[in-house]
């Protein structure tokens, strides 16, 4: 791997994108020099523009930095005083104003100061590479490329790289590898065409989405309901997305597309003057950043969500639109439907998918790149060709013909087949040459979905499975809704411990899903409460405790491969692993108090042990219980893996993987590294403060209650939690065992779940996804 060659990066242009790209480089632990122009006001700080950008980053939500401490890796400067320091950097990213002359002038200046071989890339989204490098020295052309990040760069996984025939291939590999391994991006090679891949198709889709909604008389809610869930597209759909990115951006993008696309491009035919859009922009309705957009929150009388009438141009209370469930579940049925919504679905998606199919190989070498770009750049669950497979390529082609529209060559070529197929135990895609070949995986990328195609599971039930992932390592996969943990999962986990003991060296707990686990299945718990099956609930609590301790004390290493949410019971699984390999975007927390409960599967003891053993924590009975109380009583969830370390949901030496696709591979490697000489941990013993400590916590909680921060049921929950954390009626002189703590957890859990307010909280959270503050 040659990623070590990038030790310092310079970002020029501290606007929204430039600054946020700098933050992501800092998130990778790499020092960044962030340069911008001198401020207009002569007397002020000469690096004030970049400094203000860093200050803004620290206030932005969602946070561009994974930890505020990362801001220290970003050094602010200006292009007058600090330009020479470009020579210290291995990669210069230009993110200045989208003006060719300004960019070219900057490149020439850069060429004079950079070390030879230093990569220079532009984050342009509108200017072709050929124009950018025209007339530049050959040496500069060799080191130049476009690296197109998506907003916000920390969270959007797509990076489009565009090169020219002159670009040094090894340098591109170096930047691509760094972007993949360190910045966590999926690199898609795009060709030098307008809008590259994602924006080319995405703007076409948006434009058609708006046009067709007006033509067919849909409300914005209807349009977004059709475009959202049925097609695996974020629920913002078309209009919600425009509100998010800013309506005022559309005329710019359209103008730039118009200027650079070939005259026969289908996109140009879709462009039309929109008096509504022009008026909205003129009046400041530019979307969420402005006074509102197609949707707005009207605060004149309370808080009312409103939407604009596409015909009337007036706002009115938003009315929810739903797609009938049989259509919502099947995009195929939806486009076939003759109803208005079906007509809209076909008009927009038929055109968009046909457009995409006509663009390969013009914008990318293969369909895999196009699908990846739309999945990662627009958060579609499936790319255009995967969607075509779902709809049936032949049926789509036939419908296009029926409509009298041209059928793209690729769509003709696929014929009766599909763009992807599984053969020889691998996923293959249709190349532009008509041959199928394996979807390439970078070395170090291991996906469970690939493994699952090649073999049967070792064990499986409705909620989980155990897979052989090679090298003597087994993988336990949650497969329930939101990976929530239910009795079948616990049962299979217990069984898995036996299987792994006999046949494997180590166990990884992981799934390809967005979230590791949203926690215990509350719906089942609520059902049991409603029929007063208290014994069943207690059995579930003690069963979970037994299973997770079996995992902890198993004679083989267990590694949790965590990504996304790991909440409540999911967090407790993580806490019982010998080590964790976490995706940088891991949101971990013991959130039980939010639903009126306490952690019941051993989470309290595991957290107590971590804080007790943490360096720098003062001695004595209270600091560790206090720290856990502070974290757990308010249901704190980490906003990154880095923050999870400071909250001690992760250990200092737990691994962090920046690229989601590399997580399983890294987790497996971590598990294997623990195999030699593995000895299970010894059960901890605690010295806990007992009643005095519980009183101290209660006094603190009461203070928050008087301040109006804690609710009355919060006090009940806090007391139940503090009873566990302080060891019940323990005396500081007596050791409290892990078993004692588990018994206290059960006692507090059962005490709380029998209270009405806790049941109200559970029910409310199940219904709304939000906490009830009672």
């Amino acid at each position, binding site marked *: 791997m040659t990623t070590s060659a990038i030790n310092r990066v310079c970002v020029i242009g501290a606007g929204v994108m430039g600054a946020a790209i700098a933050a992501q480089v800092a998130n990778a632990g790499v020092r960044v020099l962030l340069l911008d122009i001198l401020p207009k006001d002569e007397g002020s700080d000469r690096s004030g523009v970049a400094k203000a950008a860093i200050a803004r980053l620290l206030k932005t939500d969602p946070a561009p930095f994974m930890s505020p401490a990362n801001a220290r890796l970003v050094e602010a400067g200006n292009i007058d005083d600090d330009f020479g320091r470009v020579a210290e950097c291995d990669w210069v990213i230009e993110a200045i104003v989208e003006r060719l002359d300004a960019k070219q002038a900057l490149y020439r200046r850069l060429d004079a100061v950079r070390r030879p071989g230093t990569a220079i890339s532009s984050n342009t989204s509108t200017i072709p590479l050929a124009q950018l490098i025209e007339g530049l020295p050959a040496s500069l052309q060799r080191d130049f490329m476009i690296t197109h990040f998506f907003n916000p760069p920390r969270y959007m996984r797509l990076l489009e790289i565009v090169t020219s025939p002159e670009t040094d291939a090894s340098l591109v590999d170096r930047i691509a590898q760094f972007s993949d391994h360190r910045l966590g991006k999926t690199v898609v090679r795009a060709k030098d065409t307008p809008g590259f891949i994602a924006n080319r198709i995405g703007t076409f889709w948006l434009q058609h989405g708006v046009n067709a909604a007006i033509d067919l008389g849909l409300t914005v809610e209807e349009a977004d309901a059709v475009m959202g869930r049925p097609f695996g597209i974020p629920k913002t759909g078309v209009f919600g997305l425009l509100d998010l990115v800013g309506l005022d951006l559309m005329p710019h993008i359209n103008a730039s597309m118009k200027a650079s696309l070939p005259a026969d491009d289908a996109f140009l035919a879709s462009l039309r003057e929109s008096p509504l859009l022009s008026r909205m922009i003129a009046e400041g309705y530019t979307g969420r950043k402005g006074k509102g957009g197609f949707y707005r929150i009207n605060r004149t009388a309370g808080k009312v969500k409103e939407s604009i009438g596409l015909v009337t141009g007036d706002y009115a209370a938003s009315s929810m639109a739903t797609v009938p469930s049989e259509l919502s579940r099947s995009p195929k049925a939806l486009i076939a439907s003759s109803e208005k919504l079906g007509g809209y679905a076909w008009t927009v998606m038929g055109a968009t998918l046909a457009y995409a199919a006509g663009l390969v190989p013009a914008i990318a070498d293969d369909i895999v790149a196009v699908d990846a770009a739309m999945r990662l750049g627009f958060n579609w669950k499936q790319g255009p060709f995967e969607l075509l497979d779902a709809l049936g390529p032949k049926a789509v082609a036939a419908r296009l013909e029926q409509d009298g529209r041209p059928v793209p060559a690729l769509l003709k070529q696929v014929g009766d087949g599909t763009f992807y197929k599984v053969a020889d135990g691998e996923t293959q895609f249709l190349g532009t040459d008509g041959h199928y070949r394996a979807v390439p995986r970078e070395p170090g990328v291991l996906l469970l979905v690939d493994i699952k195609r090649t073999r049967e599971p070792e064990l499986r039930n409705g909620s989980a499975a155990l897979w052989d992932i090679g090298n003597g390592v087994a993988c336990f996969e949650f497969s329930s809704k939101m990976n929530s943990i239910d009795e079948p999962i616990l049962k299979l986990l217990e069984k898995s411990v036996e299987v792994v003991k006999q046949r494997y060296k180590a166990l990884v707990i992981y799934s390809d899903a967005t979230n590791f686990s949203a926690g215990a299945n509350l719906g089942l718990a609520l059902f049991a409460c409603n029929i007063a099956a208290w014994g069943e609930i207690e059995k579930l609590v003690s069963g979970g405790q037994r299973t997770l301790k079996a995992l902890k004390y198993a004679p083989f290493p267990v590694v949790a491969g965590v990504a996304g949410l790991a909440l409540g019971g999911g967090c407790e699984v993580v806490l019982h692993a010998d080590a964790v390999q976490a995706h940088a975007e891991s949101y971990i927390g013991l959130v039980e108090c939010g639903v009126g409960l306490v952690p019941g599967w051993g989470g309290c003891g595991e957290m107590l042990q971590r804080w007790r053993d943490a360096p720098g924590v*003062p001695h004595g009975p209270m600091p560790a219980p206090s720290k856990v109380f502070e974290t757990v009583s308010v249901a704190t969830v980490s906003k990154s893996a880095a923050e999870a370390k400071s909250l001690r949901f992760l250990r200092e030496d737990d691994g962090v993987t920046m690229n989601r696709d590399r997580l399983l591979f890294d987790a497996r490697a971590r598990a294997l590294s623990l195999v030699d000489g593995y000895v299970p941990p010894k059960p901890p013993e605690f010295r806990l*403060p007992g009643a*005095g400590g519980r009183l101290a916590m209660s*006094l603190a909680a009461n*203070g928050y209650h008087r301040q*109006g921060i804690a609710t009355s049921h919060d006090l009940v929950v806090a007391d139940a939690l503090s009873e566990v954390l302080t060891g019940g009626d323990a005396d500081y002189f007596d050791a409290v065992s892990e078993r004692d703590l588990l018994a206290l957890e059960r006692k507090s859990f059962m005490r709380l779940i029998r209270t009405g307010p806790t049941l109200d909280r559970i029910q409310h959270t199940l219904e709304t996804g939000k906490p009830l503050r009672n």
Partner: protein
Amino acid sequence: MQNIVVAGFTRSPFHFASKGALARVRPDDLAAQVVRGLVERTGVKQDDIEDLIVGCAFPEGEQGMNVARLIGLLADLPQSVGGVTVNRFCGSSMQSVHMAAGAIALGAGEVFICAGVESMSRVPMQGFNPLPNPELAAKAPAYIGMGDTAENVASRYEISRERQETFALASQRKAADARSSGRLKDEIVPIRTKAGVVDTDGCLRPESTAEGLAALKPAFQATGTVTAGTASPLTDGASAVLVCTEEYARRNGLRMMARLRSVAVSGCAPEVMGLGPILASRKALERGGVKASELDVVELNEAFASQAIACAGEIGVRDEALNIDGGAIAIGHPLGATGARIVGKAAQLLARDGGRYALATQCIGGGQGIATLLERV
């Protein structure tokens, strides 16, 4: 009995805990620099010093281990000088003055350094291991939060939020005037920190306005009247005064600032601990044979505006005598260091502005008051 005088006063700049310029300074180092500054500025013969008495409200961690002795060693006092740490919460370093006076009266020494220190950044209020006694908690509100006591005083004395804010604003204004006209400079010992020398106070908010204060949320009770603007901030700081016999001061040419006339401590109900100064001050005034109306200078610690207003009224403090250079709401309240600061400040004001009698008094968590009556030399 010999006359006892205050013959020197120094303090560190006071800064907000955690976010201020002293957050990364160990409290023992901080106090040692202030003690060293006092020795150098007064010119006292170090070998004559009997004891270094240091007040500290949460004497643990970096301010634990009998921090007084450690401060003496850090400050390069002769090894022959003793060191004792005393704790009467917020009254700790005023207590150190009283203990020095007591020792002198006992014939147990002539010269004392009475200091105080608190790093509220590095040692949390209640310390690292708060372990209240459940039986006591059931019997008395011994562990009541300070903010809640301020609310209790406000409602018992019907002190409106607006009145508290007017008081706080006056404190800010007086402190800002004192600083801008250089009246705080002489007492401050510049503190060396890793990030450079810190030589000015950090808690003052001269930009405070009535509107700004009125916009703050209640800090302790959702429907209460006490806000962060009408409470003293969590503060890092250290202070020290030189206490000796008048005879010693004259013999050695020390600059006398004020003479000690009487002292007192008293207890009160924990839930209105802010009223502690009332009884303590009455006792000290009575022992000193002085009427409140005769006081030209009163340093009444502003733990909260509500309790300061109530106490000033009950004691009968004239407005123009009260906290002339501003109080703790503006300057800050590093618990263990405040007592020595206000004794030193009261003595300094008598020497500086004239006047005959000065009172320094403060309330103490748990329900106590402490008071020191000074007179012009």
